[in-house]
């Protein structure tokens, strides 16, 4: 048995006899296990529920009776953001953003009914999820267990004996690191189990594996910090106080300061604010309900020329449908401009927050974890984009029916003539134009790519602290 493992075994033996270590360890273990089970259960139910709702929304749309196609434009449709399998470990922004969007003509609605809006308010901390326990509690556990790793030997005088026996400071530090790594390894079991569970539910093995590796890296960073402080400090109580302060700053304060900074640096307008600006521009585009709006004069000339017709009554297509289609396309381009710029600003805010990961490994790991799980802000933005594409497609398909399936004469008479109104109802079999929608997370490689920056920050931290450990171990003296 090498010196390294002997030192580590001695440490484990001591820990096993320490009440503080046992109580702390068992408490955290129970918490991780319980939260993992509950969250996995909840998210699995949620995945099924939302998939069922998506399917039922589609069935309802198809089951609509014969109608004027524009009625179906306003009848609308729903898109649900189904959580990816790894959300069982890190639900991310799922609780904060709405889960479904109502899709209809001429409007981009927001995702509504976020869980947090109906949540019980008990103060600042987020809900208990496995990801949160890893980010917040496990570092604290490593601190409580490991702050005295080297100091214990120093305070009891055994450090002098060990060094005199010819153990180098480096070997000693290596043994202590191994001891702490053993504990961290045990506590990696839950995240590995959840990653395996997600992989069984269809998660690509790559993201599941990087998720576990990222958390191993995170625990390694904290373990290294604990060991470094234990090497450099002179008193146990000072070491513990310094580590608790570090935890307070890194886990609680810096991430929130990052949020404050992101919010203060970039003013991303809310949707209502940017909608108001947009409405003014939209009015210049004309009202798609009113084909007589002067804004459509140029379009009228162009369409009349194209069909060599004298007036809109002679057109082989329904002028109202043409206008509806034209104005929807223009309006959508305008709405997309605004929503893209809003999302860009939000992404820039979040990038600033992520940069605070340089000062807080907790923030860096959180960003990496949400990205890998497919529950980050960028994935929510993609959901917004994809549901918008779905909206535009079915609305334009309906406008196409409006232009080509209905007679203009009936269409303009339908508000006053009940028989014309009957003739403008399109057979319900046409509603099959709706595409099926299943929201999928980004491909594994994309997610890993996006998580690379925060993971690199963690590696940087590990290298820095590794240097501090080597330096401290070399100059170790009783």
């Amino acid at each position: 048995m090498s010196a390294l493992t002997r030192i580590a075994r001695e440490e484990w033996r001591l820990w096993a006899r320490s009440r503080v270590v046992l109580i702390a360890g068992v408490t955290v273990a129970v918490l991780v296990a319980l939260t993992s089970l509950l969250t996995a259960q909840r998210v699995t139910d949620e995945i099924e529920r939302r998939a069922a709702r998506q399917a039922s929304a589609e069935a309802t749309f198809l089951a609509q009776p014969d109608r004027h196609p524009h009625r179906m434009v306003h009848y609308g449709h729903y898109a649900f953001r189904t959580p990816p399998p790894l959300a069982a470990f890190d639900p991310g922004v799922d609780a904060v953003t709405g889960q479904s969007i109502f899709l209809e003509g001429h409007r981009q609605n927001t995702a509504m009914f976020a869980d947090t809006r109906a949540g019980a308010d008990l103060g600042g901390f987020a809900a208990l999820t496995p990801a949160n326990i890893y980010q917040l509690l496990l570092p604290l556990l490593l601190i409580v267990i490991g702050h005295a790793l080297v100091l214990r030997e120093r305070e009891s005088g055994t450090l002098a004996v060990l060094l005199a026996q010819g153990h180098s400071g480096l070997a000693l530090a290596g043994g202590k690191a191994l001891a702490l790594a053993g504990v961290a390894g045990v506590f990696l079991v839950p995240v590995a189990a959840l990653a395996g569970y997600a992989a069984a539910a269809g998660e690509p093995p790559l993201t599941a594996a990087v998720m576990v590796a990222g958390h191993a890296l995170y625990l390694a960073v904290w373990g290294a910090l604990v060991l470094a402080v234990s090497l450099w400090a002179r008193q146990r109580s000072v070491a513990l106080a310094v580590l608790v302060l570090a935890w307070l700053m890194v886990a609680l304060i810096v991430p929130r300061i990052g949020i404050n900074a992101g919010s203060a640096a970039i003013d991303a307008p809310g949707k209502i604010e940017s909608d108001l600006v947009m409405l003014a521009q939209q009015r210049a585009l004309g009202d798609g309900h009113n084909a007589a709006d002067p804004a459509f004069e140029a379009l009228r000339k162009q369409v009349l020329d194209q069909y060599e017709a004298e007036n809109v009554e002679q057109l082989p297509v329904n002028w109202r449908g043409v206008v509806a289609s034209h104005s929807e396309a223009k309006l959508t381009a305008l709405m997309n401009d605004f929503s893209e710029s809003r999302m860009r600003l939000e992404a820039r805010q979040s990038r600033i927050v992520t940069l605070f990961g340089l000062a807080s490994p907790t923030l860096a790991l959180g960003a990496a974890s949400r990205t890998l799980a497919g529950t980050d802000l960028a994935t929510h933005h993609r959901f917004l984009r994809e549901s918008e594409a779905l909206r535009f497609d079915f609305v334009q398909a309906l406008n196409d029916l409006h232009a080509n399936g209905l007679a203009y004469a009936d269409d303009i008479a339908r508000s006053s003539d009940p028989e014309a109104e009957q003739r403008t109802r399109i057979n319900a079999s046409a509603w099959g134009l709706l595409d099926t929608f299943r929201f999928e997370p980004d491909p594994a490689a994309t997610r890993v790519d996006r998580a690379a920056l925060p993971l690199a920050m963690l590696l940087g931290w590990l290298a820095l602290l590794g240097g501090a450990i080597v330096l401290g171990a070399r100059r170790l003296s009783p």
Partner: protein
Amino acid sequence: MNGVVREARFMLRDRGALMWIALALLLSAAATAFGIAEVREQRATIATLLEEDAQDRADALAGQSDWGGAAYAAFHLTYAPPSDLAFAALGQRDTAPWLHRVRMLALEGQIHEADTKNADFGLIGRFDFAFLAASVAPLLLILLLHDLRAGERATGRHDLLVATAGRGEGLWLARALVRFAALALALLVPFWAGAAIEGAPFASVLAASALVLGALAVWWLIVEAAARRQASPSVLLAALVGAWLALALLLPAGAKAAIEASHAVPDGAEILLLQREAVNDAWDLPKDATMEPFLARHPEWREFAAVDRPFEWKWYYAFQQVGDQHAEPVAEAYREGRLARDRAAGIAAILSPAALVERGFERLARTDTGAMIAYEDAVRDFHARLRAFYYPLLFRDPPYDPLAFERLPRYEPAR
């Protein structure tokens, strides 16, 4: 008194203690400054929007030729401005909307629009004064006070000190009191400065300060109870951090999960679904199917309620209201469910000083769940006034006269 002065001099030479207190001062100043910047930005947003909203409504109304079209085109801004104390506790303002633009259509389709900010903000949370006072300050207090006795014990001076001081209790009390007061001042002075800048009402500031001091006193008692044990400083600190974790994090999070599991809230999407089905079905139903439930609420319009043509505005707005009526039971259950959860959370918070402080601040700053629901109620009231304004015009159908819009109801936020 002498003891206090002496201990104050001691503390000024204790670099560790000074560092914790300086940190508290710095964090409090940062939290206050960020909070003030944020509420100012929110007020500026509201001011700009009010102008743009009036301009936009004037533009929209200018092109109209009938009452129904005008009601369809004119949007109205509703908002909940941040209170004078909101800088200290932004609370629900990061997750619940405080801005809407509503018009005469079915309200249930509009009031749940969520104008929320960046989702990461709601997820991670802001560093505001309430969070500092509720969660971080107790940990700083623990770090300051945990080793008063044990530190002296570890250096072997404990018994000597107690013996020479005569009454041992007075010594520890003075020492702890000085540190407690220094920490409390470091936290509260920037907050008071912020409150003065924002012009927060004196009574609220007093109540908020009492809340901070009261909660810190509870934590002091906890530290005191633990410190009487014969244990090394590091074991004490580990135990106290464990107690902090249990009271400030695990208990609130556990209570939150339990409350949400036991108090069901109807799925919000259900409200929208009901309203949408009711509104859209109306197009295909006989006109009476809409007008009867409408007239049951508004019997005063019965003699004007005949609908002769396939499309008439009064019928259109009647089925918008009937859509709301359909969703009413679920919408009411959604509102009640949230209030019930909030009440349960208020009771559970008694067990956690941290949750109590944070909820107390949100309440004083009117950024709590109750205030956000009160804002929704105000939007509902305003929408009802909008309907009361338009229904006579739609049903009696007097000749179109844009001058009537000078009497349009105006939204006034609660003060």
